[in-house]
């Protein structure tokens, strides 16, 4: 049986699935139930100077009938008394000594950081996560993403935390930056043991079109929130991978962003995460989703020959490169399996209206015809086809040796003729 245990920056966990710092990790009783359900670890909802929240905190983004495919929140850090949280951390650690509790923190001054770090560690924290990511409310007060967007401040506060902490320190990064790499490097310079990313994306999730008020609506007003949920996964994967492939970075990564099942988790791990954190999917479906996550991951590892998580971490990073290094001479064309085709012709509409006009309806059959001489191999038909494996993108042996754009520009390697560019 593959071993699911993992280590992120010195924090040991029985499996890579952690609750992210969010409403599912708000209290001791919740986290205890999560551990009972099988979660490996939990990042306690951010401690700091307790705040007060508004009514109406979340909003869902329905995409073609899928409710909350994207999700947004304007909730702040914990609103519970610090002493209550600390007491429950201690209780939870006693009940679940093998499950790491990482305490998320967000305060302002060095003195405040020193004190809250000491209290957290005294309570039993196995690690700390510095919340430099929250893009709503707290950043207006000079914390959260206001820190994460300034590498120098990030580095300085990380340095304080590392100085006062006796447990590993993870820095939680904000995606609300143009390039994630300088921010990861700042955390490294500050001495962090790892990073976690992404926090939520600054967003307006929708508008109440009858009242003319953005969502979520608080009385007659709204504000920008943090976007998360399944819809943000591609953005998160890119940022995780951007740090994982950066040679000067080299820190462990706890991946976050739209992870809803074991398959998402595998993708984050293959792009460099050693643990993954989940919040939105738990908010939508509850703690029991972790059962599918753990046995799905285990079965994936078994069928793909992995014994341990660390063998998987970053396995797809070598295949992530710049556009200029892609092989321009690699050629595919769409093939429609006439036996599987149901004649919906979504591929015809997609190709005609959205691609290169090479899939055509035929006279005597509903199965469309692909003009392979014109097909650029864009994948759009395969993406819209509702029938599994009906359309395949078949490689063409065009006789051209591999050549990238960079090789063409710098070395004059020959490129195959363009298709569909007339």
């Amino acid at each position, binding site marked *: 049986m593959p071993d699911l245990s993992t280590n992120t920056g010195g924090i040991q966990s029985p499996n890579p699935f952690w609750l992210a710092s969010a409403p599912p990790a708000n209290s001791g009783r919740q986290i205890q139930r999560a551990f009972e359900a099988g979660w490996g670890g939990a990042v306690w909802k951010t401690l700091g100077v307790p705040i007060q929240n508004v009514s109406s905190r979340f909003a869902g983004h329905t995409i073609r009938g899928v409710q909350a495919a994207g999700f947004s929140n304007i909730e702040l850090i914990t609103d519970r008394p610090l002493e209550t949280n600390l007491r429950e951390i201690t209780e939870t650690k006693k009940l679940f000594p093998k499950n790491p509790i990482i305490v998320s923190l967000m305060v302002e001054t060095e003195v405040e950081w020193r004190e809250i770090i000491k209290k957290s560690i005294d309570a039993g924290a196995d690690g700390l996560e510095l919340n430099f990511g929250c893009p709503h409310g707290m950043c207006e007060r000079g914390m959260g993403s206001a820190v994460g967007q300034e590498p120098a401040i990030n580095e300085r506060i990380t340095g304080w935390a590392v100085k006062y902490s006796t447990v590993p320190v993870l820095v939680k990064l904000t995606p609300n930056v143009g390039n994630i790499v300088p921010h990861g490097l700042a955390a490294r310079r500050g001495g962090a043991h790892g990073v976690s990313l992404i926090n939520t994306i600054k967003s307006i999730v929708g508008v109440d079109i009858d009242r003319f008020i953005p969502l979520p609506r608080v009385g007659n007003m709204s504000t920008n929130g943090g976007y998360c949920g399944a819809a943000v996964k591609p953005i998160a994967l890119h940022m995780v991978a951007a740090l994982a492939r950066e040679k000067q970075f080299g820190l462990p990564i706890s991946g976050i962003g739209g992870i809803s099942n074991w398959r998402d988790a595998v993708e984050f791990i293959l792009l460099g995460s050693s643990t993954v954190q989940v919040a939105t999917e738990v908010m939508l479906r509850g703690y029991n989703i972790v059962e599918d996550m753990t046995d799905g991951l285990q079965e994936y590892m078994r069928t793909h020959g992995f014994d341990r998580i660390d063998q998987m971490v970053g396995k797809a990073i070598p295949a992530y490169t710049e556009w200029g290094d892609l092989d321009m001479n690699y050629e595919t064309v769409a093939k429609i399996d006439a036996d599987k085709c149901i004649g919906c012709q*979504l591929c*015809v509409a997609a190709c005609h209206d959205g691609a290169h006009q090479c899939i055509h309806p035929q006279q005597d059959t509903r199965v469309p015809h692909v003009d392979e001489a014109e097909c650029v191999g864009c994948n759009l038909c395969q993406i819209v086809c*509702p029938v599994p494996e009906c359309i395949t993108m078949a490689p063409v042996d065009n006789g051209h040796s591999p050549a990238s754009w960079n090789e063409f520009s710098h070395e004059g390697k020959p490129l195959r003729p363009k298709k569909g560019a007339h």
Partner: protein
Amino acid sequence: MNQHLPTNRAETAFEDFKLPLLRDAAMVEANRCLFCSDAPCINACPTHIDIPQFIRKISTDNVHGSAKTIFESNILGMSCARVCPVEVLCVGACVYNELEQPPIAIGKLQRYATDIAFAEGWKFFEAGKDTGKRVALIGAGPACLAAAHELRRLGHACTIFERKETIGGLNASGVAPYKMKAERALVEADWVLSIGGIEVRTGVTVGEQVSLASLEQDFDAVFVGAGLGADSALGIPGEDLAGVHGAVSWIEAMKLGTIDLSKVRHAVVIGGGNTAVDASRELRGLGVHSVTMLYRGVQDNMSGYAHEWSAAFSKGATAQWQAVATACTGTGHVQHVQCVRVDTNKNPVAGTEFTLPADLVLMAIGQAKLGRMLEAMPGIRVDRGRIMVDANGYTGRPGWYAGGDCTNGGKEVVNAAAEGKIAAHAIDAAVMGDMGRMNDNRTAASKNDRTGGASHA
């Protein structure tokens, strides 16, 4: 038209067989639709409703636009949503059938959008600018209602002549009550007439109170949508006994009034078409102990839809296949039907005689064709009672057009709606003196400019 039906009608005993979709279910189902390109469901609909488009509009909560898409193609879209045999039309053509997944519930989605349109009182169309032309329509069923509505959009004045006191045709008097009850058809008829400019003269039989010659003289064109006539008789002994009825007239009595089934324990329905199947299921639904459908052919050859028979069978109706009635017997009132088995050539097989108990016998073997009333008009061809028309509903006699059951021999409401609308455009082209326009796309567009467009209700 303010028409009042008795509230204690026999048909009110039935619940809807297919339950309406509530909003959430409609949204889920609408989101399943693939929005096929050149969708097969559109071609399977005689009125060519842009089904993917109206379903997509449901999925975005644009119900007004959805209903408009439906009614633009088929003004009787509300009743068709309930009564269409979607299993053999749009739903049968859904590509999900090829994927071995449940096809989209197109009929239910159409009902969802059109019911909301009716509940909200939305009006989508206005009469066109008055052309000064007048069209007479014979019959007030689906074909004439669809034709009259389209003619009004084109600006022509319409007068409907209906021999009965009730309008709506078979939509009111013939549709199985577990699909739609009579008042719904009347509500729809009133909604169609609300475009204005359609005079309805009920209780007027053309050929009696009004002559064909006077119609020709007084109107610029005539559309015949008279439907079918009385139930055919089998011509067997005892058919005149009490308790032996034509199925269509029995169904009409059941839908529009009260019937007494208290002494009926056994019923026999003779025939194998959809009227026979409907009547069998209705009798069971009204509590008749045993209902036997007697059909001379094999089950696979019956003209009634397999899905309808399967529903009737599940309600407890049974059938005797390859059997015919030779006599109804009884003293004063029918008590038995004498039957004999037939071979595949429908010849009786000696020695296979049997008797069925019967307190009620319904003859569902077809209806009289009404075309003969037009035989006196030179240029109009009538074949075994059916009025012969071209693809545009033209009879061959200038000014005379026809559609619906009287031309197609008895099809669906949706066929009548399609034929009425097509004929309306042919009539428009003829009375406006532009016979070549029918096949000309450019002028078809200008023709649309003349129709009353969507109103801003």
